[in-house]
C-alpha cells in the first residue's frame, strides 16, 4: 500500500512539475513572441530601407514558397525587389534576404538566421564575404572561383549560399523585373561589314557570317556546322529569314530543330557582339 502511495507521489510530482513548467513557458512565449516578431519585422524593414533609400511602399508576392517584396518609390515607380528565401547549408537552413534593383543588380544581402558552425561557416555573416555579391547582376556567372569566392574550410556553407543566390537572382529578374535573359543588341549601332560568330548547336559549334549594311542585318550565312543535315536545313531555312525580317534576335526557335535553331541565334548574337566590341567578343579564342 505504501508502495502504491509512493508511486502515486512520484507520478504526481512529475506531472505537477512538468505542468507548471509548460504553463510558465506558455506565458513567457505569449509575452515575448510579439516582441520577437516585431523586432524581426523591424530589422527587415530597416534593411529594406537601407538597400532602397527611396522606398515608400512595398507589395508582397509569393512564388514557390519564397516571399518577394516589390519595392516602390513615392511616385509608384518600381525600385527593385527584396526576396526572402532559405537554403540548406552545412548545419541547417540558412535564411536570407536578397535585395535586387530594377536593373537586376544585387544591392543587398542579409543573413537572417543560420546554424552554421561557429567560427567557420558563420563567415557567411561577415561583410567581407557578403560584399562580393554587391553590384553583381543577373547576367554575371556568380560561379565560385570565377567572380565570387567560397571560403576554404567553409566550402559547403558558402557554395550552397552562392548557388542559391544565383538562382534566386534569376527568379527575381525573370519573374518580377521582366528582364530578358540576355542583353538586347542595338543592331543599328553595328558598323557595316561582315562578321563571324560561333554558337553552340546540338552537337558542336555553328559558325555564321553576318553581314550588316546600313544598320540592318542583310545576310546570314552558315559557314560551318555539325548538326544533323535534315534538321539543320530546316533551321537554316527558318531562322535567318526571321532574324533578317524582324531585325531582332528574339525569334521563335521552337521549330522541331530547336537545338540547331538556338545555335544559329547564338552565333548571330556572337557575331554582332564582336562587331560592337572589336577588342574582345564573348567567345574569344581562349
Amino acid at each position, binding site marked *: 500500500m505504501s508502495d502504491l502511495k*509512493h508511486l502515486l*507521489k*512520484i507520478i504526481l*510530482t*512529475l506531472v505537477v*512539475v*512538468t505542468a507548471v*513548467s509548460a504553463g*510558465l*513557458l506558455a506565458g*513567457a*512565449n505569449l*509575452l*515575448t*513572441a510579439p*516582441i*520577437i516578431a516585431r*523586432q524581426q519585422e523591424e*530589422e527587415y524593414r530597416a534593411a529594406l530601407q537601407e538597400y532602397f533609400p527611396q522606398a515608400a511602399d512595398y507589395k508582397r508576392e509569393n512564388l514557390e514558397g519564397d516571399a518577394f517584396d516589390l519595392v516602390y518609390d513615392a511616385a509608384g515607380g518600381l525600385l527593385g525587389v527584396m526576396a526572402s528565401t532559405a537554403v540548406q547549408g552545412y548545419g541547417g537552413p540558412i535564411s536570407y534576404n536578397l535585395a535586387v534593383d530594377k536593373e537586376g543588380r544585387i544591392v543587398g544581402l542579409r543573413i537572417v*538566421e543560420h*546554424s552554421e558552425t*561557429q*567560427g567557420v561557416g558563420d563567415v557567411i555573416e561577415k561583410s567581407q564575404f557578403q560584399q562580393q555579391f554587391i553590384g553583381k547582376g543577373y547576367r554575371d556567372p556568380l560561379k565560385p572561383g570565377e567572380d565570387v569566392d567560397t571560403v576554404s574550410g567553409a566550402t559547403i556553407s558558402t557554395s550552397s549560399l552562392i548557388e542559391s543566390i544565383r538562382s534566386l537572382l534569376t527568379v527575381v529578374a525573370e519573374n518580377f523585373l521582366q528582364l530578358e535573359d540576355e542583353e538586347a543588341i542595338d543592331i543599328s549601332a553595328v558598323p557595316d561589314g561582315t562578321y563571324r560568330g560561333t554558337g553552340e548547336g546540338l552537337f558542336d559549334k555553328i559558325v555564321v557570317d553576318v553581314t550588316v549594311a546600313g544598320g540592318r542585318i542583310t545576310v546570314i550565312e552558315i559557314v560551318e556546322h555539325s548538326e544533323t543535315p535534315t534538321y539543320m536545313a530546316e533551321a537554316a531555312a527558318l531562322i535567318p529569314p526571321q532574324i533578317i525580317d524582324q531585325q531582332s534576335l528574339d525569334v521563335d526557335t521552337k521549330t522541331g530543330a530547336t537545338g540547331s535553331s538556338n545555335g544559329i541565334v547564338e552565333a548571330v548574337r556572337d557575331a554582332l557582339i564582336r562587331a560592337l566590341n572589336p577588342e574582345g567578343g564573348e567567345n574569344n579564342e581562349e
Partner: protein
Amino acid sequence: MKNSYLADITRGIFKENPTFRLVLGMCPTLAVTVLVKNGLGMGLAVVAVLTCSNIVISSLRRFIPEQVRIPCYIVIIATFVSIVEMVLQAFVPSLYAALGVFVPLIVVNCIILGRAEAFAGKQPVLRSLCDGIGSGLGFTLGLLLLSLVREVFGNGTLLAETNYAVQLFGPNFEPMRLLAQPAGAFLVLGLLLALTNIVFKRLQIE
C-alpha cells in the same frame, strides 16, 4: 549567519570556481568565448538560470521524491533556460544570435545540475540563492578571462560588436587566428588553468 551567506557566494567564485577549480561546463566555455561580449552574455545567462533553478529546487527539496529528482531538476532548469532564451531573443537579439545553440545547451551545463544536486537539493533557499549567484559569477569570471585573452590576441579587439568596441592594434596587426578557433580555446584554457593553479598554490587556498 551573515558570514555563511557571504561564504556561499565567494566559494563559487574562488575556491570552487566552476571553470578553474571544478572544470565543469566546458562546452560553452570553449565554444562561445571568442568575444568578450559572448562570454559575458553567456555567463550572465548562466547566473540567471542557476540562481532561479537553485531557488526553485531548494524550495521544492522536501516535495521531490528521491527517485525522480534528476528529471525534476532537468525540467526546472530547462524551463528557466527556455525563458532566458526567449527573453534574450526579444530584448538582446544580437547576443541571442551570437550565442546561438549554446543558449539551449545551458540545460545540460554540468554546473547547473551539479549545484542542484550538490547544494540546492539539500540546503535552505537563501543559501541556495547565494550559492547560485556565487557559482554563476565564478563561471562568468572564467568565461570573461578566457574570452578576454582570445578576443585581444585572436581578434585584436576589445568589446567588439558592442558600442564600446576598441581596435587595440594598428592596421598591420595580424591577429592569432588560432586563438579564435576551437583549438585555441583549449590552449588558452590550459594556460589559464595552469596560471590559476599556481596562484592558488601560492595563496594556499587549497
